[in-house]
């Protein structure tokens, strides 16, 4: 079992992340302290949650480029609600962010489901519409920290067992996603719908509807992250999270989610996001300018997809009978 994990994609990737992590620790021992590890995880929480949503979308052979714009719009919306109605409770505000995010995601999903329009075009369009709508909503103005209520800013920072609520939210999302993608029919449908849409249809899976759910989840998580983002940085403006969708997709691709659909795991996706998180946190420590960050994530995406592509290469049909192995493989065996 352990051996299988080590040889799997997730295994290789987690080893790389760990080597990187401890490698930086050699230069700067503080880096690998518990508190810094928690802080790295906390920093990466939003990326993890968005990447998990994006994974569902990519599993079903689609792509969601509108996540960052969704984050900006929802973030601005809840920040402004908080600004003008500071008495509204945080629970309601979070529910509101989930709802708005879900709505924006559902718009994408409906176009893909009912009109069968390529998701890349739809989300390219909604990406600029949502971003533009954020401008219309705020009239270009910022919502600054002094305009937000105390609890609005404090909630994600509140520490439980020395980890902030933000990090705990990511933990909850990871656990839910892991259970859903392994043990619920609803979750398995993402794999079948993306792996072989025709066969999924023959098996009674409504592929379009599954794609809709993927966008719905991706949107809902974006909505949640919208609140978390503006609260964490204590500011809301039109260009919040600009270009972040690429980091989200990068996390998925690095984590082994196949862009052609049907392949990808929650564990891989989380490690992919952590990879980016560790790199981002390590750069200043090893004395590399943060200007390197973008090029590194680009390079890593390319290397990751090349690695994916070459591992899939051996897809030839097996026709020849392998003389020595045939008896072996004919016997049921358990690993």
């Amino acid at each position, binding site marked *: 079992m352990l051996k299988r994990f080590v040889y799997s994609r997730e295994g290789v990737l987690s080893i790389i992340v760990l080597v990187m992590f401890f490698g930086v620790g050699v230069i700067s021992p503080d880096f690998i302290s518990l508190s810094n590890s928690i802080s790295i995880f906390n920093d990466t929480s939003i990326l993890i949650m968005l990447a998990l949503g994006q994974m569902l979308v990519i599993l079903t052979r689609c792509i969601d480029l509108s996540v960052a714009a969704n984050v900006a719009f929802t973030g601005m919306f809840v920040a402004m609600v908080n600004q003008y109605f500071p008495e509204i409770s945080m629970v309601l505000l979070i529910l509101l962010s989930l709802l708005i995010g879900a709505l924006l995601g559902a718009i994408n999903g409906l176009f893909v489901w009912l009109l069968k329009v390529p998701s890349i075009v739809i989300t390219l*369009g909604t990406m600029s*519409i949502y971003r*533009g709508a954020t*401008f219309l909503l705020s009239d270009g103005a910022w919502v600054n920290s002094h305009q937000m209520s105390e609890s609005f800013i404090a909630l994600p920072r509140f520490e439980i067992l020395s980890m902030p609520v933000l990090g705990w939210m990511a933990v909850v999302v990871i656990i839910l996603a892991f259970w859903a993608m392994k043990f619920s029919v609803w979750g398995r449908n993402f794999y079948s719908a993306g792996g072989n849409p025709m066969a999924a249809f023959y098996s009674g899976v409504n592929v379009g509807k599954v794609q809709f759910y993927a966008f719905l989840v991706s949107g809902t998580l974006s909505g949640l992250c919208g609140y978390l983002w503006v609260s964490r940085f204590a500011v809301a403006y039109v260009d919040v999270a600009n270009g972040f969708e690429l980091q989200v997709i990068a996390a998925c691709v690095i984590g082994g989610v196949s862009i052609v659909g049907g392949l990808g795991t929650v564990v891989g996706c989380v490690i992919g996001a952590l990879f980016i998180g560790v790199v981002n946190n390590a750069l200043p420590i090893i004395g590399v300018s943060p*200007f390197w960050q973008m090029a*590194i994530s680009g*390079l890593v*995406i390319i290397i990751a997809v090349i690695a994916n592509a070459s591992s899939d*290469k051996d897809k030839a049909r097996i026709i020849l009978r392998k003389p020595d192995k045939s008896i072996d493989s004919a016997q049921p065996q358990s690993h």
Partner: protein
Amino acid sequence: MDTAIKKSATPDALLTGRLQKFFRWESFLILIVVLVCVMNSYLSPYFLDPWNLSDATFNFTEKALIALPMAMLIIAKEIDISVAAIISLSSTLMGLVAQMGAPVYAVAFVGILAGAACGLFNGVLVTHFKIPSIVVTIGTMSLFRGISYILLGDQVVRDYPDGFEFFGQGYVYWVFSFELVLFAFFALVFYWLLHRTTFGRYTYAIGNNPTASYYSGIKVDKHRLILFTLVGVMSGVASVLLTSRLGSTRPSIAMGWELSIITMVVLGGVSILGGSGTIAGVVLAVILMGLVTFGMGLLNIPGIVMTIIVGVMLITVVSLPVLITMYKTSLKRKEAKAL
């Protein structure tokens, strides 16, 4: 014999053929362009001034130059979303050689060469490793712009040699700017390439059915490689124009342009799934978007509202044909049931 066969076709079929030609997407675009012109001149007396119109072309010519090869690339079932990042990297490299005191033509040459190299790099990744072009170019988009950031950081380069400003600011004759003339020239070149040459025919064949094209002896991978390089070259050219027009380079140059370029192409009637589209349609879409932007500028509407309109246009353009075919098939179905 050929004509005999044609004659044997029912006149009805020919009529619908002609009607179809008349109701093409391009005709629809022309109509909208005329409408927008009328509206703009009604809304603002400054619209029809030739110098104003000429100024207005600057906001689309650079993007339009990339839209031309991008149309061919999308027709061939591929896509390149790294074009804006190519502009940035090529502009950065131009800035660096300009700082070293290179002459005007060397600077421009470096810009175009850098574009070509980036395009070739995309093409090699797509064809050699068989990776979907969308993922490759998402990666190279970060990589190319990331290299710009590494090279420049938050620096701005302004030391361009004298005469360099001609590319983006000069006029060839009267109100016709160098940029506009260059765009007109390349529009003709790409029209010829896509609609008159074997290269263009291969582009359509590959876009409709890459496997059958390969089985027909077309070097599909080589063709894709050339197309990606072509997109790179034109991004380099656009970068020369843009850098020259702005007179400065910073890594964030042309941020988000890929969206408007792809929108121009799709709005021009090129199917995002590949296989169909024309250069005439793309040119019309370019003019349309230029006019709308210009009109909004005259009405003092902020630029970001334009992105909403572009987004809505993009979604409408891809959804409408689907809705129409859905409606048509439901009609056909009813007819068939009635039989």
